[in-house]
């Protein structure tokens, strides 16, 4: 049963040079210790294929069904074959060797919904690609709306005060937004604009930072 593995092992083993020509472990295991010293025998020796038990009647029927099924598959348009090369000379037997025309793959009616969106434009050029928008989350607008709701609820003062309050809030929000846009705290943690340093030099030494 190791015939199939022989080919791979022989090819791979023969190509290696130098130390450590590795041999497939499976060959050793299946063929016994002496398998490497024997001559190379055929991969597919011409013996009658052995079989433990004869095929029973159910197995026979199943094989017949499977054979028909395989033939049917070969006739479907899904079984792609290379088109035959053009004939060089006309022969008499060409009369009998007619190749049945198969249906084209494109002729099959299908529901385009089943295909992924990216392929739909290839099969049917009229359907454009659906462009996905990135979810525009208007964060500032949301906060605006919430604050506007909050200030409208405290509706005891006059409208002008509300207007001014809202404006003030807007200004404050603007200032906060500028700092909050960057997520890194570089400004707070690292940036040292030198205001707090001593102006006097100590002994004129260089400053090590």
């Amino acid at each position, binding site marked *: *049963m190791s*015939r*199939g*593995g022989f080919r791979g092992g022989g090819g791979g083993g023969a190509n290696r040079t130098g130390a450590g020509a590795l041999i497939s472990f499976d060959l050793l*295991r299946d063929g016994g210790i002496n398998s490497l010293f024997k001559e190379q025998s055929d*991969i*597919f020796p011409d013996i009658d*294929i052995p*079989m433990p038990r004869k*095929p029973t009647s159910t*197995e*026979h029927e*199943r*094989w017949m069904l*499977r*054979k028909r099924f395989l033939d049917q598959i070969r006739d479907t348009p899904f079984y792609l074959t290379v088109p035959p090369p053009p004939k060089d000379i006309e022969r008499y*037997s060409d009369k*009998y*060797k*007619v190749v049945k025309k198969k249906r084209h793959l494109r002729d099959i009616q299908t*529901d385009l*919904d*089943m*295909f*992924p969106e990216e392929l739909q434009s290839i099969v049917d050029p009229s359907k454009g690609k659906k462009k996905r928008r990135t*979810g525009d989350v208007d964060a500032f607008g*949301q906060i605006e709306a919430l604050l506007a709701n909050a200030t409208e609820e405290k509706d005891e003062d006059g409208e002008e005060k509300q207007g001014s309050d809202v404006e003030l809030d807007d200004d404050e929000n603007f200032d906060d937004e500028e700092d909050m846009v960057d997520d890194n705290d570089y400004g707070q943690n690292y940036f040292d604009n030198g205001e707090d340093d001593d102006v006097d030099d100590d002994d004129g030494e260089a400053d090590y930072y």
Partner: protein
Amino acid sequence: MANDRYLIPVLPEHSRSVVDRLLEAEERETEKYTITTAKELLAIKQAAIASVEAELNVDEMVGMKRKAADPLNAQTKKFAMDGSRKQELKEVDEHVFFVVNYEKYNMIFRNELVVDFATDRINRTAGQVVKAFFEHGKNSMKALHEDDTPSATPLHIANLLPADLVERGDIVLQHDSMNQHHKPGMQDIVRGYITLLQTDTAGFVKTKDGAGANQYTINLGKLRKTMKRRVLESLLSERLGVATCRIARILMEKGKLDENQVQKLAMLPPKDTREKLAQLTLHGFVDIQEVPKSADRAPGRSFHLWYVHQEKCYKELLTDVYRTITNLQQRKKHELSLRRALLEKLEREDVKANMDLLNDHDKANLEYMNKLLERLETSKSRLDLMLLILRDF
């Protein structure tokens, strides 16, 4: 066929990947909230998973419409969850695509294998009893990995068996002490067989608790293990010899054993046990566990225990079976390529119309080729059944 779920309908949702569907469901849920907290994020994820699974597991007859008996209520896609399981035959909607339901067919093949196993091991009537169990539970089993069939009482089983069972007389039951010559009735025979199947170590049938009196089910969990082990043992004994198989069985049952213990239990001379253990190790069925005697793990001074790791064996077997099938397929291709001239002759139209145009030599070759192909293909299908036990059971 669609009524019995041999074919299942295909929805467009099936061709979108699972991750895509999950993301879409999550987006839908997220739209309900404006700002999310961590807890809400978790809730969104779970709701998305639940909705995706609900879409997948919809157990309805999509794509079937009722025959136009009541035109008021007929719709093209109808959910059958509203208890309309009385077998109104529904017609198939022409615009829906269907696909073969492989799970159901795998279950049928698996049931056949179990029935064959019961027939081999006990007798034909036992096989029929097991078959009746499967018939009873046929409609409600959905997946291969279930452990039990739906439970059944002896009465159910008795109803499903052919009537000539009583005359066969192939089970010896305890005689009713009062009526000595009273022939056992159907019920008694069935009960006798069920008890027999229950006490068999292969674990065919077991009682199901909590479902009422006298409920039995087929014990698929234990059957799985038994059948896999049977395949392993038969392969071992065919390939490496009966004695080697004996050693492997001892190790499987006893756990980890030292070489001397193995030799005693297997009743073989020590040289032979050593050889066979080495052979088993070479094929990967047996491993060594080192138990050191002293603080340093010197191999000379530690116990070496042999053991069989069953899962690993099954994986090895699986690869072996795949390799064998590949070999058969390659051989088939080779044989077909050898006979290309003959095949081309067969493709000709005039030959297809009238087979007698071939001369006798060709006919003999054709017959031989068909015989060869049949042998190869039936070997492949037998190996496929083995794969069913090892991989898909």
